[in-house]
């Protein structure tokens, strides 16, 4: 199948890239800059109703009864929905469907959804929700992960086979870890903690649904995975998927927070069915906080053994993961927490034991760098400690343990291109590392860390042998090329990327391409914007489709001019005869010539991953067709009196394979780095003693302002991947990971304290400084 063809990373026309690698404008830049772009909440349909959700004020309770009669009687109310009307459970991972659209039997966190109302306006819907009477029987609340581990009763999900609060347990060992301890020159062992944080995309979730008289449903939703929403709707509403159309309008950021099917998508659909009118639901910021699916907090224990020259001989990890109330992507999170650590360094022996538990708090899920940001933090801090103890430069120890390219990790992941060493070189030079590390004045310091991440995985969430990404081209007599892709552009620029690839391949200008994306009626399936898979997979599918079309055009024009195909060259939308300077065709003319020969023009392209992964249960989870690599160096200034950490500057080098558009790649590197650095001491998804989110607002949840962000120097490393679209790999998530441990390691360089528990609040810094002073005084 063409999908598995290697397109090769080279320029298609043999004389250099015309579009790829250039700082082209995003296809939607003007619409977004002028406010013309349509987001879900901009959609308003005739007779549209507005809907609201009644949420649980209890963290864990049985529902004894729900009485909606008063709400139904309120003037302006058109439909009321309760959980028993949609009893089928769903979940993004097909093995763990444990969510109901609205609670059927019990509620599992404060903010869990109980009932919904569609009314003439939002105020009426809110008033009606207040009139719904729910009788609860309170259950013991499972507050912490430790409690969940040892408290099987009451199980938060009591319909599972196992009566306990363990969501997923994975234990895998590669090599013999314990055997290394005795032979090691150095053993470093410590506990680490990563707190929960959330995405805070600027656009809150929104959905608009309309049920036509023909029994067809159309749903517009701010999702990053139209395909899974489509499948989930069909399952829960028990509808023929051919009668459901899911459309993703412009999305104001996702970062993983829009990758599950969410209740509002089903609620608006059902309320529309019941009321016979279109229905909208727009969440408040508070509701977005309750939907969460953000970063899991993890308690981590790591033990690294090493030789005196710095060679790592084994890594042992035990992780306790707080999943919150539902599974979400938790099965994958649990695997990722171990599977993605086995590069960029060679681990000769490795073991991880990860347990995800259920607690009565909003569910965690995938946030940028899903499952692997937390272990990366712990390990990179530990590696820094190994370097310090062995008196090896932290950059050197990372070079020393370099995994290499075209190799396989201990857990069976195939590594192709690997530019990690170049990343280290780049940040070392740019940051002037050699004259700074261990040489700066007390209070200031510099630290390094490295990481790797997937460019999609070959685990397609639901098992199937069909392509992971498909693209369809329509070539019009007007000269326009329309590209249909299931890919979800959530602001990262995937529609632009598709246009660049098609333009490059066909020799035309991106301006003459229109991208129609993420509409299940119109576009071939793509699995969605998650796991950093879109550029790699949709990019390859786009090239595949465009290459087939190009071949047709070249063939038709060659025949028309009666020349060899090699003599036909398309440059910037003009077709040239290399044998005859005089002879050219415009793009439009060439399309006519081609249509005359081949009839109506179209082509399809697709991508599927090659067979990858270790030959063991879970061996395909986290196995990617290509891995990106990153290194960060951070420079900090610590106020030793207040404990405040100021990150002055971050240098980040990222190996993205080939930068299809360097501006967009830099944007992703910077955005990831900012987001990671903010998790060091600002952002904290905190619960209070009532098991209620401590401050679900943009005032209390501290995302950084421009004044709180370090200067960032983004450096692009291009390793040119043999299988990526023109050699590209991912850039959207990898460059977050090592930002966090780089800051932690810089703090050590600055003031000699090893902080292992995030977030690094000023109070923790002061406490650690005090402890260090006491130890020094004792000595």
């Amino acid at each position, binding site marked *: 199948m063409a999908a598995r063809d290697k397109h090769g990373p080279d320029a298609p026309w043999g004389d250099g890239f015309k579009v790829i690698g250039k700082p082209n404008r995003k296809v939607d830049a003007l619409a977004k800059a002028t406010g013309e772009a349509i987001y879900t909440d901009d959609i308003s349909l005739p007779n549209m109703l507005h809907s609201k959700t009644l*949420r649980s*004020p*209890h963290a864990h309770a049985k529902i004894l009864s729900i009485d909606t009669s008063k709400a139904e009687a309120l003037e302006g109310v058109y439909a009321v929905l309760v959980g028993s009307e949609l009893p089928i459970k769903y979940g993004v991972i097909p093995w763990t469907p444990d969510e109901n659209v609205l609670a059927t039997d019990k509620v599992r966190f*404060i903010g869990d959804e109980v009932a919904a109302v569609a009314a003439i306006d*939002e*105020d009426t819907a*809110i008033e009606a929700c207040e009139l719904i009477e729910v009788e609860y029987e309170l259950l013991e609340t499972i507050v912490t992960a430790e409690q969940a581990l040892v408290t099987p009763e009451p199980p938060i999900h009591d319909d599972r086979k196992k009566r306990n609060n363990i969501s997923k347990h994975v234990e895998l060992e590669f090599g013999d870890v314990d055997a290394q301890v005795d032979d090691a020159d150095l053993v470093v062992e410590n506990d680490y903690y990563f707190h929960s944080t959330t995405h805070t995309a600027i656009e*809150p979730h929104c959905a608009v649904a309309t049920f036509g008289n023909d029994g067809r449903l159309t749903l517009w939703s701010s999702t990053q995975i139209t395909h899974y929403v489509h499948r989930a709707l069909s399952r829960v509403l028990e509808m023929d998927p051919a009668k459901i159309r899911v459309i993703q309008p412009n999305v104001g950021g996702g970062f993983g927070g829009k990758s599950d099917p969410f209740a509002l998508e089903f609620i608006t659909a059902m309320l529309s069915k019941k009321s016979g009118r279109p229905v909208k639901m*727009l969440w*408040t*910021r*508070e509701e977005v906080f309750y939907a969460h699916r953000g970063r899991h907090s993890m308690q981590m224990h790591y033990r690294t053994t090493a030789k005196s020259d710095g060679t790592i001989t084994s890594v042992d990890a035990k992780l306790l993961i707080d999943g919150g109330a539902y599974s979400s992507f938790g099965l994958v999170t649990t695997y990722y927490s171990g599977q993605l650590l086995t590069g960029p360094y060679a681990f000769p022996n490795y073991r991880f034991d990860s347990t995800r538990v259920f607690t009565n708090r909003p569910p965690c899920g995938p946030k940028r760098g899903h499952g692997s940001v937390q272990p990366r933090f712990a390990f990179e801090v530990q590696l820094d400690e190994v370097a310090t103890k062995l008196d090896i430069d932290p950059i050197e120890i990372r070079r020393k343990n370099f995994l290499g390219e075209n190799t396989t990790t201990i857990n069976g992941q195939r590594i192709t291109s690997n530019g990690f060493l170049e990343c280290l070189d780049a940040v070392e030079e740019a940051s002037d590392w050699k004259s700074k590390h261990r040489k700066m004045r007390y209070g200031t310091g510099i630290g390094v860390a490295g990481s790797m991440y997937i460019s999609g995985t070959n685990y397609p969430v639901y098992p199937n042998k069909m392509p992971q990404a498909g693209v369809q081209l329509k070539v019009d007599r007007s000269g326009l090329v329309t590209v249909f892709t299931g890919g979800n552009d959530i602001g990262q620029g995937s529609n632009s990327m598709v246009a660049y690839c098609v333009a490059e391949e066909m020799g035309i200008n991106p301006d003459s391409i229109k991208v129609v994306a993420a509409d299940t009626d119109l576009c071939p399936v793509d699995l969605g914007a998650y796991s950093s898979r879109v550029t790699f997979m949709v990019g390859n599918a786009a090239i595949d489709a465009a290459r087939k079309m190009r071949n047709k055009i070249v063939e038709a024009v060659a025949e028309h001019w009666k020349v060899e195909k090699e003599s036909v060259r398309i440059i910037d939308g003009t077709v040239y005869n290399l044998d005859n300077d005089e002879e050219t065709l415009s793009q439009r003319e060439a399309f006519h010539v081609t249509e005359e020969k081949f009839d109506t023009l179209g082509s399809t392209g697709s991508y599927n991953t090659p067979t990858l992964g270790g030959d063991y249960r879970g061996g395909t989870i986290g196995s990617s067709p290509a891995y990106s690599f990153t290194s960060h160096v951070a420079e900090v200034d610590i106020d030793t*009196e*207040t*404990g405040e950490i100021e990150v002055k500057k971050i240098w980040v080098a990222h190996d993205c394979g080939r930068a299809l558009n360097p501006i967009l790649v830099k944007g992703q590197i910077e955005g990831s780095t900012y987001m990671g650095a903010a998790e060091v001491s*600002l952002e904290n998804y905190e619960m209070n003693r*009532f098991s*209620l*989110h*401590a*401050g*679900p*607002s943009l*005032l*209390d949840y*501290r995302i*950084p*302002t*421009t*004044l*709180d962000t370090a200067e960032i120097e983004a450096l692009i490393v291009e390793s040119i991947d043999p299988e990526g679209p023109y050699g590209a790999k991912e850039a959207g998530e990898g460059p977050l990971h090592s930002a966090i441990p780089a800051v932690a390691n810089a703090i050590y360089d600055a003031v000699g304290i090893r902080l292992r528990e995030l977030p690094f*609040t*000023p*109070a923790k810094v*002061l406490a650690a400084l005090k402890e260090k002073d006491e130890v020094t005084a004792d000595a």
Partner: protein
Amino acid sequence: MLRMPKFKVLNPATVAEAVDAIQQVEGSRFIAGGTDINPNLKHRLLEPECLVALNGVEEIFGISQTEFGLRIGAMESLTNVETNTLIQQLAPGLASASRQVSGPQLRNMGTIGGNVMLDTRCKWYNQTYFWRKSLGFCLKKDGDVCHVIKGGSKCVAAASNDTAAALSTLQAELEFANAQGSTRIAIDKLWQADGIWNKKVGPHDLLVAIHLPAALLNQKGSYKKLRDRNSIDFPLLGIAARLKISDNIVDDCALCVVALQARPWPLDKASALLIGTTVGSDAFNEALKACCAIAAKQCRPMPNIPGDHAYRHAMVPVFIRRAILSCLD
């Protein structure tokens, strides 16, 4: 988005009309820039049937020198206060505090009058209706318990208005108007230790202007604010200092702290220690130490606003010292 409740808006053009308008409907409130009251309305912390908008009342605008000293109309925006050259010169501590209120957009809308009259804040109170209901509300609104002090019968929500601290060090006099006429109250006399309503005037008293006495103008002043982010955030601790220095001797000193408890708190005992010392002398340094130590004893932050209150406490002496030293820069 959170929904705004429904209310009527009146638009008086004069002080007389304003004080008349506010009495027309029981429970009415003034609205100046709206940057405090609007979120509070959305959170259902207030449920007035009517708002009296002050942006058309010309009399309560303007910044000018008067016989008394300096007059700042209550409706002047924080941006105007922060950038006004008279205030920068004559009351640098106030300019500094104004500059540190929230973020630039909010300072364009928010007024100095609204800042003085700001509602107290608490992490259990400045939340949505649903949120507060989930934990059974609290004393300050709709409930009968306090979540900060177990069994407490008094609300200890924190005065969080940055400029109040600076205005206290300047011994500002506040000119109010109501249906009975006009009164002037020294700012330190305005407050009461009740988080539910921390002022001795009522919500129907219109703050017309702030008057700064000439004798305390043109001295050194500063404001130091502890916060998680360098913009937007309310103070976790705010300390204003004013120093009068002649011939290198501290002639006068005033300190005031906010974001601790229900009222801004002048630290007279602490500031008195510095008076009479020569800047930079051992005596000054000793006095500074003692001043910080006393302040740390006096100021006991409670877990009423976000952040670790033990840490906020640890920062009291640090911020006192920094506030004083930055007057000497």
